[in-house]
């Protein structure tokens, strides 16, 4: 392997309260294909943003072509030939392929008007199309291209800029199998031309297929670098996990009862060819694990009636129910605490009392007027029960901490006797103290007979809080785990779709 042209030395990035990168080292040689793997939140994206010059590290150095500097700017990265193919592609739907590849650098006719020389533009793109084996022409409107074809356009854009390193963030996450195969061939082609590639992926078989080296990140640290010879799924999973999890599990006071909610062959719009079936029992916490984008939130939204189910049925206490709006879900006793509480859970500049009463205002009305006395009394009850840290219930929720805001969202539903509570990322952005209080509340609810479906990307939480775990992978359930089978390894293996 030739000398690396790019080296990251002890790069650290600290955000308030979080160490995103902890003395990370990474080197890239000419024509090398590196797979970057790790769990959600391991620091992969931050590392790539450092390379792109978007994020400035707090410590360490970047050695580029022998020149050492503390950080890169966006322009440094472009000049050095570092190009990105983003998950959300940055292309213009209203232009054709050639226009996108040479956006801002179009060849122009002479003369004062500087009109675009379309003929020359198309001629410049032609060799790039051939090089990647594209099945569309330079004048194809971008709006007509599939996602995989758009990705090729992004790669052409990178090549037209004489990229030496192409970074792809989960390039295959929404590709079909044949499209993935073609992308793998494109990567091999780039490698043959001496272009280096770093790609982030959750699919270990892709790593096996085309990477020269896999770098595994965990909690912001490089925990291992596996060469071609050492690459096995088992070795990668072993590196990705391996923290000591504190035991925080509290068993239910009574064993879970019969099934309350049955999801039968549910199909959402995100994964039209995958169906999900699961049943949730009275008094249990069912953890729903999986990687970001595995379809968990979409499933929750469909159960709650925010989106419609394409197919499938929802049964409550054994009887099929029709849920077309959140209102109908609420009337059936199914409540959702959304992932993004600021966007979907709260009215930020409104008091705690008014937020808490919002879903159930009809129970504090007299002649259609709000009975503020009853509203306040109920809010005070929840305020004390959940130990919300605020001077009084007239406090606006925007001024509360994340944990206390989350408790306010919980309080909205607790006064209404939930049957099923779907909790999407219960402790995201919540401080440690409030986190354990929330776990405690969940257990008290299940002991009172509530069934809880807890979506979580936090491994410690899934394993430490759930009575049972369902793991989703690309829109389908890849497996259920009972407490005796709980291990980070088992969850992760199902989450990446590696079943053996």
């Amino acid at each position, binding site marked *: 392997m030739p000398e690396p042209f790019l080296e990251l030395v002890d790069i650290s990035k600290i955000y308030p309260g979080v160490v995103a990168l902890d003395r990370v080292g990474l080197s890239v040689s000419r024509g090398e294909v590196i797979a970057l793997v790790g769990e959600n939140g391991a620091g992969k994206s931050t590392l790539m943003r450092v390379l792109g010059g978007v994020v400035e590290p707090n410590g360490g150095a970047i050695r580029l072509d022998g020149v050492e500097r503390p950080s890169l700017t966006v322009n440094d990265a472009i000049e050095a030939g570092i190009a990105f193919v983003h998950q959300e592609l940055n292309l213009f739907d209203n232009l054709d392929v050639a226009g996108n590849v040479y956006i801002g650098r179009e060849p122009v006719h002479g003369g004062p008007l500087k009109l675009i020389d379309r003929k020359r533009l198309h001629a410049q793109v032609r060799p790039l199309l051939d090089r990647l084996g594209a099945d569309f022409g330079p004048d194809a409107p971008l709006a007509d291209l599939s996602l995989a074809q758009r990705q090729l356009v992004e790669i052409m854009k990178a090549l037209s800029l004489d990229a030496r390193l192409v970074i792809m963030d989960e390039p295959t996450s929404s590709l079909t199998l044949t499209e993935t195969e073609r992308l793998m061939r494109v990567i091999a082609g780039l490698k043959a031309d001496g272009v280096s590639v770093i790609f982030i992926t959750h699919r270990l078989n892709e790593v096996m297929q085309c990477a020269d080296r896999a770098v595994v990140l965990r909690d912001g640290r490089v925990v291992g670098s596996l060469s071609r010879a050492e690459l096995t799924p088992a070795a990668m999973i072993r590196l990705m996990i391996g923290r000591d999890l504190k035991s925080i599990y509290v068993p239910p006071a009574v064993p879970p009862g019969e099934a309350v909610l049955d999801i039968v062959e549910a199909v959402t719009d995100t994964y039209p060819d995958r169906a999900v079936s699961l049943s949730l029992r009275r008094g249990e916490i069912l953890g729903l694990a999986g990687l970001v984008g595995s379809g968990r939130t979409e499933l929750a939204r469909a159960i*709650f009636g*925010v989106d419609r189910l394409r197919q499938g049925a929802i049964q409550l206490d054994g009887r099929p129910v029709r849920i077309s*709006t*959140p*209102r109908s*879900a*609420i009337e059936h006793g199914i409540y*959702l605490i*959304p992932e993004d509480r600021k*966007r*979907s*859970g*709260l*009215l*930020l*500049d*409104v008091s705690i009392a*008014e937020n808490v009463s*919002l*879903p159930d*205002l*009809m129970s504090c*009305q007299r002649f*259609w*007027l*709000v009975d503020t006395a009853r509203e306040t009394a109920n809010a005070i009850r929840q305020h004390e029960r959940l130990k919300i840290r605020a001077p009084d219930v007239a406090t606006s929720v925007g*001024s509360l901490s994340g944990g206390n805001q989350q408790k306010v969202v919980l309080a*909205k539903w607790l006064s209404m006797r939930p049957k099923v509570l779907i909790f999407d990322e219960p402790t995201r952005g919540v401080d440690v103290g409030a986190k354990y209080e929330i776990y405690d509340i969940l257990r008290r609810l299940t002991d009172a007979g509530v069934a809880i479906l807890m979506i979580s990307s936090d491994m410690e939480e899934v394993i430490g809080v759930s009575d049972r775990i369902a793991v989703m992978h690309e829109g389908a359930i890849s497996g259920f785990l009972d407490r005796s089978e709980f291990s980070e390894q088992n969850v992760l293996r199902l989450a990446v779709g590696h079943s053996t």
Partner: protein
Amino acid sequence: MQKKDLSLLVLILVVGAVVAFINPRFILVGNLSNTANQVGLFGIFSIAEAFVIIIGGIELSVGSVIALLGVIFIDFIVNRNVNWMAAFAIVIAGGLLIGLIHGALVTRMRIQPFVVTLCGLLIYRGAARYYTEDGTAGFGFGDSFPSLEWLTAGRTNVLGFPLPHSVVALIIVTVVAWVVLHRSVFGRYLYAVGKNEEAARYSGIHADRVSVSAYVICGGLTALSAILIAMYTRSISPAVHGSFYELYAIAAAVLGGCSLRGGEGSIIGVVLGTVLLQVLQNLVNLLGIPSSLNFAVMGAVILIGVVADQYLVQRGRRATAAKGRAQTNVATAPLERANAE
């Protein structure tokens, strides 16, 4: 009364006192009664507009609707001999229907309210002109509707002040709107949808239905003011009648604390905003300012008001932020020390 409303009231009193000092004719009973009549007429459709602005929408067709429904009303009772009570009911129903259509286009078809109501502005204006063949609709010689005229354009002596009935109508509308917006469950839903439509939906509120209702209420109230204005002017040239009235309505709502982002504003504020606009109008007349400057004066005052308000809000926010920082510093200091160790 909110703090914002109070400062608006103070501003009105100050402007009024200055005008009265320069030109005492301002406080003559006749002038005050006429100004009050204008407030009554403009206040009702400003409240109508406020309902839509509070849910985060906008209604630009108010002026055109006033022209269209106005010519229809006069034509019905003058030329077609429709009983005025029936005509009244038909026109109100027409206003509600227009609101329903706008609301449906915004919520079902997901067209931006600005676009929907801008098209409404053009369509209803054209329809009004076509309806009268661009002629003037008005009462002929000897047409007389004593009870209707008394009810809509009459004045009743209250303690020596001839109180216009448009003001009585505004007072009734204000009280009802205030109860609905500030005290009822439905009012809570209106504000919730305006503040955060997604959170409202996740709380089980039928956000679309709430939005449509706001447009329907706006249409109905606009129709009511269309009748009052038609009876006051007694003749309508459909090309100009009511033009720019939507802008008076938006201006009054903004002065009254409504945010065009939705979720804010009070009914008292909107009424006070209308009062301020009419006092300014009156000021231009009484102080001998060329009437061509009418709009310029109004625009300048609104701009100054909004800038001053924003300045105060930002200063307030900086103060709270500084206080918050001080608090968190105290709260996290022991933690940081622990971490350092």
